[in-house]
């Protein structure tokens, strides 16, 4: 899973896809996850990172992570 090559992500959570012209905003958690994906981390690594810094159990995190990734996919921002 990786973020499509030409996607731009700004420091304050603004995302631009030059291929489609779509732009998006991310909340802080969303931005952190997208940057981890962009940094080449696997889902397992992302989970470990988030669990170490957030007060959150693994099942719930799994659930929200899956939902978020499906949205990224829906919006054509990631490749499998």
């Amino acid at each position, binding site marked *: 899973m990786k973020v499509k090559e030409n996607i731009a992500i700004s420091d304050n959570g603004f*995302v631009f896809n030059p291929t489609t012209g779509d732009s998006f*905003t991310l909340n802080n958690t969303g931005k952190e996850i997208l940057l981890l994906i962009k940094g080449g981390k696997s889902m397992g690594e992302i989970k470990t990172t988030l669990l170490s810094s957030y007060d959150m159990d693994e099942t719930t995190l799994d659930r929200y*992570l899956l939902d978020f990734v499906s949205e990224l996919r829906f919006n054509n921002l990631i490749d499998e």
Partner: protein
Amino acid sequence: MEKRVFERPTITKLSPGLPSKHGVGTAIAPMPFVEGLKVDELIEKYGSPLFILSESVMRKNVEDVNRAFKVRYPKFQLAWSYKTNYLDAVCRVFHQEGSWAEVVSGFEYDKARRNGIPGEHIIFNGPGKKAKELAKAASEGAYIHIDHFDELYLLADVCQKQNLEARVAIRVNMDVGIYPKWDRFGFNYENGEAWDAINRIMANPKLKLMGLHTHIGTYIMTADAYKIAATKLSDLASNIAHKFNHNIAYIDMGGGFASRNTLRGAYLSGEDTTPSFDEYADAITSAIINSQIKPDKLPTIILETGRALIDDAGHIAGTVIANKRLSDGRRATIIDVGVNMLFTSFWYDHKINPTQNHSGLVEETIIYGPLCMNIDVIRPSLMFPPLKVGEHFIISRTGAYNNTQWMQFITTRPNIILIDKNRETHIVRKAETLDDIVANEEIPEHLK
């Protein structure tokens, strides 16, 4: 290092160039407290969902409407509209504040009597009164508002046979320049039917014409409609005085004042468009004072407004059950409050706030109730923060009609609590149990 609070990750597509339909910010502030009490703690104590009523807000609303009328007009009387919310505790708050009872059925009449209201402080409206109910109301001196000629004949017959006298008024419907025109209740003004009914009542020695009543509609957003209605009723009153040398005791302007809820599909928020009590009061009192009625014969103004007095005194707090994605990518949040208990979500875009802080980012969300029914939609579309499962929210302005029009359907109904002036909480209706629901059922022998 202390761990950070996790917020659901969200991504929101931006649509530049599209104007916002509402033209207002989409920020949704958290609402952790009601009347100074923590919503989360109330839920923990009384369960979720939970109806919360504020006694102070009810009393304050009564004070406001009383002030608006009494500074403009010498005689004013409120009558609490039972159908709006007939929980005994609620009725008793309004009765303590001096309200009479306005009832529309034998059941509501008995409820008002049970709450200690004497017959002569009950206004009996409605198109479906039965002979037995009419006899009881007449014998107890209630004001019976006649809805149609068949009821007039029925009441005359009851009074004749039981040798009773009844204090009556007629309900008058009329064109007040608004749509929809409510003409199914009462006698029409424009076609002369109301005048005809008045003449028949005046000719019957058993019926004492005490007043005139109208109820022009519900959720009336313009005070001018009341001015037209009050003018027409005043004309009738002065015609009665002229022809029969009889001065009616009151003009009952019904209810229908809007609350500050936003009607579904409305362009602007109800908070911006709802007229104040002062605007309604000004329209009604000026029409009556400027009419042909002599100043020393001015009738009492009776008002039966319910929604505007109780809507903002009620809230329902609840819990997020689940989040899901719909096929078009939109988020759906399922909550434990369904249309079975929040009936008004069919009419209103209810205001919903989370009880906890969030980052401020919102995404388009559909809010569904927990019922296994397609119609169970609390908000078809709103910008809402990403609440997690188990987090709480509070829906505002739910005091009117929900505790009367709700239905026991699929689930049982929850606790209702009242927060009193000292911020003490009291259960005023216990959550239903399976036993409550089946109490009236009977099983035939062959099915046992």
